[in-house]
């Protein structure tokens, strides 16, 4: 049977579906930023930005950009009524102190038990940069990853053991991909859903690891 991958927007919408009313959420740089576009206006979700914003709003209209009001990716944003600014030590206390409900991050690799690798390829020519990834990964009550399941070369980014340098150990609870949503548990991967037409066996084959269903 054939199946179709979730588009980037469909994947963002799938993540957004699981973010409950009232949650405080940090969306990582890159693809996770798209999730904000899919949270319905009727659902009040507080967005946190590591550089010191709680209650972050969408991008400003063209011409109204203020580069003193940017997100973690340094793109201009807005502040919602009720939003607040604070310094970096407070911002990271919000993460490390377990005050954030959810963070959504990109990844190079995630292990079946939830180890995360998303900051450095470890290649000799690469200049390492970590930013807030390690604080977010271990700090939020739930860390979710959003990524394509396979690399461009067709290798699974869900692995038994990460080969890239780790960001955090056992910290990822859930992985949202273009083909399936999975939970990482101490006992390994659990399939939560798959795109239409993709069987559990076929998904397990793509990943190369055993899967259980919830």
């Amino acid at each position, binding site marked *: 049977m054939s199946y179709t991958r979730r588009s980037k927007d469909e994947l963002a919408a799938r993540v957004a579906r699981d973010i409950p009313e009232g949650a405080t959420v940090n969306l990582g740089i890159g693809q996770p930023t798209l999730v904000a576009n899919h949270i319905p206006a009727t659902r009040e979700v507080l967005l946190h930005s590591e*550089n010191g914003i709680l209650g972050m709003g969408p991008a400003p209209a063209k011409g109204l950009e203020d*580069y*003193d009001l940017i997100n973690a990716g*340094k793109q201009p944003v807005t502040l919602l009524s009720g939003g607040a600014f604070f*310094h970096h030590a407070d911002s990271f206390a919000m993460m490390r102190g377990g005050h954030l409900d959810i963070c959504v991050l990109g990844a190079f690799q995630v292990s079946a038990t939830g180890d995360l690798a998303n900051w450095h390829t470890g290649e000799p020519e690469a200049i*390492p940069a*970590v930013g807030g990834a390690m604080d977010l990964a271990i700090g939020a009550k739930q860390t979710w990853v959003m990524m394509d399941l396979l690399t461009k070369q067709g290798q699974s980014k869900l692995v038994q053991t990460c080969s890239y340098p*780790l960001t955090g150990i056992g910290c990822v609870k859930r992985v949202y991909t273009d083909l399936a949503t999975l939970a990482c548990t101490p006992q390994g991967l659990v399939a939560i859903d798959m795109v239409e037409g993709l069987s559990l066996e076929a998904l397990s084959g793509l990943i190369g690891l055993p899967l259980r269903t919830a």
Partner: protein
Amino acid sequence: MINKFVSSVAEAVADTPDGATVMIGGFGTAGIPDELIEGLIAQGASDLTVVNNNAGNAEHGLAALLKAGRVRKIICSFPRQADSYVFDGLYRSGQVELELVPQGNLAERIRAAGAGIGGFFTPTGYGTELAKHADGSPKETREIGGRMYVYETPIHADLALIKAERGDRWGNLTYRKAARNFGPIMAMAARKTVATVHEQVALGALDPETVVTPGIFVQAVVRVDRVATQAGGIKP
């Protein structure tokens, strides 16, 4: 009479010695005190250790200080950006040393210095390459309440250069939006803190309930004209 206002950037940074550790506020281009960095370049101090979240954008500010060859070492969390080519070149050719620190550890190490704390145990970075010293040996770890933590030390500075919005002659400061970022904690962690403000106000004009940095953490304030913060760290 206490008056922390100085008449020029040059006067504010005049006594910076070679080999100093200099904290520079800012995240991306927000909160980067460009005027003070330009003053430091003109002043001429070299062999500096710079603490900043990033490693400079394009060829102004911190990137210009790097390009002028004044920086021996940079302590930061996110050096690689779309426009960090000055740092990238110096790093690849071995002309600048990098201490990469997870961002929250960077903030807390700065805060700890300002608060007189001798270090702290943090879960951030445990089990990763960044829980190692520069020589590759592991940092001290400890299990506390069933969780593993890494010991991190404070970062003190000789000088902090920060950008604020409004200030009075006692050195009380407020900031603007997300340009606050590292300003308040860097002000606490340095032996001498110099802040720029866009508005010089009389004592009592700042609402005491909303002063962000109390003047005790600030040694010099310079008023500079407002220049709109430019985009940085992103692809144009």
